[in-house]
């Protein structure tokens, strides 16, 4: 998939546990895990907003677009 989720990287950089982020955002840890693996169809704006608020980052820090050629 050309869109790569970098949530794992951001969590590690800020030393934040998945559990506390899931609690703050208001989603289950299972859903957060799926999001980290990029196994979701989409992210709601309010989910993105709360993740950015907690991690003090921009949406662009969480998502990267990769060319198919580059990822192949």
């Amino acid at each position, binding site marked *: 998939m050309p869109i790569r989720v970098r949530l794992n990287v951001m969590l590690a950089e800020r030393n934040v546990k998945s559990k506390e982020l899931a609690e703050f955002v208001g*989603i289950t840890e299972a859903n*957060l895990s799926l999001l980290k693996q990029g196994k*979701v169809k989409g992210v709601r704006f309010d*989910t993105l907003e709360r993740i950015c608020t907690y991690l003090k980052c921009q949406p662009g820090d969480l998502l990267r677009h990769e060319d198919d050629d580059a990822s192949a």
Partner: protein
Amino acid sequence: MPASLWSELSPSARPARLERIRAVSRVLAYACTGISFVLAVGLLAYWLASPDEAILRDAGLTGIAFHPIGWLVRLTGLVVSALPLGCLIWGLSRVRRAFTSFAAGRFFTAANIARLRDLAIAMLLSTLLKPVIGALLSILLSWQTYAQGKSVVIALSSDTLLALLFAGLVAVTAWVMAEANAIADEHAQFV
């Protein structure tokens, strides 16, 4: 979208709307059972207790009967006319389970879609069978009873067309629900 419908579909009205769907579905589930029972008992009572003249008139035989309708003919009539009713009662039993599922808060499920589709099939079969069964009954009743000899009565009414239209409506609603189910599945994959 009209303002009244917009306020009805607004997120704040959702809990009340869901509760209303559940309450109405519970009532309709009981209604399906009640209607099935009343229809079955009504058909039985009709063939066992109705006067000969009334049965002949309902079958479209408006002449004079010179023999009473015997018990064997009445029982055969009951069995034959139970076919379209059986289809309808099967459809009602399927939709009763769909209403029970709605009352439990399960809306867009594959089982509910199949149940609605089954209701459409049952209505279609029942409606298409009615004129055929009516013709069979007219032959059966006129065989030895009717002074005017054997008759075949084929009756088509606006009720038949409306029932076919309604069966089509239910079938399309089931297809639309299948689409809604696919959308709900996709939404479930959003976080």
